């Protein structure tokens, strides 16, 4: 059975500068793939490439169909949700409206209501802030809102860009706990970009190490975690 997301020979960049020089990676249905690497290695660019935010070369197949070159909104409508860097929250709108936007492309009204309730259960703090402007939330709450918004798309694949970025350790723990829950309960595949390699490898089952736009190490997350030389030379812990 082919993977949920198959990426082959992915090249991309911004204008004349190339950032990715031919990446191959997979995300399995119900699995977590982590993209690791230093700043500027091309992790964020890889996510943008998958959701069609930049021009790409190479193959991107989702559920067996090519999505390369499609518009971002069309890719979202296929069931790929993306929590971008900077979270992409609609700051001027309320928490409720952010929720409604998360489910914008869905037509199954009753289901959406059920998913709202599920998100309230997962993120009780968002329910308390229901009518508040998203811009007034704390960093952790905003990250939760971003994840909730993405989940409300009822995605088959979730792209997460640095969910721990700029958050206090306790909140990071909370968010990773939620991601475990997503993996168990929603059955969606997750493509995770993370600076915190230790946490990411704990969660992931597959991992790729990027260096200046190339994959230098790939394999099972558990194995990479055990491999001291990789940890020393690439992950720095």
């Amino acid at each position, binding site marked *: 059975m082919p993977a949920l997301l198959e990426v082959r020979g992915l090249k991309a960049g911004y204008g004349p500068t190339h950032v990715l020089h031919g990446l191959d990676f997979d995300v399995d249905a119900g699995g977590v793939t982590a993209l690791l690497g230093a700043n500027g290695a091309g992790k964020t660019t890889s996510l943008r490439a998958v959701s069609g935010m930049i021009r790409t070369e190479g193959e991107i197949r989702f559920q067996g169909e090519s999505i390369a070159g499609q518009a971002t909104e069309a890719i979202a409508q296929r069931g790929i949700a993306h929590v971008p860097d900077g979270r992409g929250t609609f700051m001027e709108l309320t928490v409720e409206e952010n929720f409604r936007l998360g489910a914008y*492309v869905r037509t199954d009204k009753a289901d959406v209501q059920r998913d709202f309730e599920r998100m309230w259960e997962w993120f009780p703090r968002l329910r308390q802030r229901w009518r508040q402007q998203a811009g007034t939330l704390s960093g952790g709450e905003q990250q939760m809102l971003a994840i909730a918004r993405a989940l409300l798309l009822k995605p088959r694949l979730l792209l997460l860009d640095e969910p721990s970025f700029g958050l206090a350790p306790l909140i990071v723990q909370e968010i990773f706990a939620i991601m475990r829950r997503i993996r168990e309960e929603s059955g969606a595949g997750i493509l995770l970009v993370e600076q915190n390699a230790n946490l990411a490898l704990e969660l992931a089952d597959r991992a790729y190490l990027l260096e200046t736009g190339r994959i230098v190490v790939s394999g099972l997350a558990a194995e990479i975690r055990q491999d001291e030389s990789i940890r020393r030379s690439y992950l720095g812990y």
Partner: protein
Amino acid sequence: MDGLAHQIIAGIATGGIYASVALALVMIYQATHHINFAQGEMATLSTFIAWYLVTEGVPYWLAFFATIGISFVIGALIERILLRPVQNAPPLTHVGVFIGLLLIIGNATGWIFGYTTKVFPTPFVSDRPLMGGLVSAHELGTTAVTLVVLMLIFVFFRYTKLGLGMRAAAYNPRSARLVGINVGMMLALGWGLAAAVGAIAGMMVAPVVFLDPTMMLGILLYAFAGALLGGIDNPGGAVLGGFAVGVLENLAGAYVVGTELKLTVALIIIISVLLVRPAGLFGRVVLSRV
């Protein structure tokens, strides 16, 4: 005292027109951060279309709604054809395109319909004086139409899914795409709506100022002033600003500067707002990005 009351009521009636055009400007500004210098010309063209329909024997209200529909289509087409290709160009290009649009629409209107001033009908007539003669039937009708339009727009943006999608596309196009919203479509819809609102304003004001190809120039200036006064990124504020400017204009015209300097009053309001409170009364202060 009756004089003053009448001036205020008349001010509210014209203020409604300014509020509508200001709202049209703000709708486009919010979505694209462009100021549509051709908004007035677009409204004038719409009004001429309505005039043509009415003179051809189409009943007023049928012509009214047909014009709104036609204007909507024209507005959306303009966005698709003229603005889409330059959406990432520098501001100078946008200003240039708007000026080109102003020239094209303004002159096309004169070319097609002629430059002579025309009488435009009002659907609001009354045999007896209203409120003791304080207010004309047309003023009352205009105010009512404006309020209904503003209310509809408010409900649309606040409570419908499409309205929410348009707001999301305006505030944060990148994230809007990520949740599956077709931002390009929302922009075209926004332009269509703005054109439709402008058309209503044109049809409401034409019976008062008479219809000719330059009819909206001064009104556009007042709408600018109203939008800035209320906050150009705040639709509600712009509407209030439009009403405020209408009353202010009428009072200034009646008691301070006379009618010859009406445009200058608008200019002074614009400059004062920009100098004293650039974000407007209800706008957010936006820090410029470095």
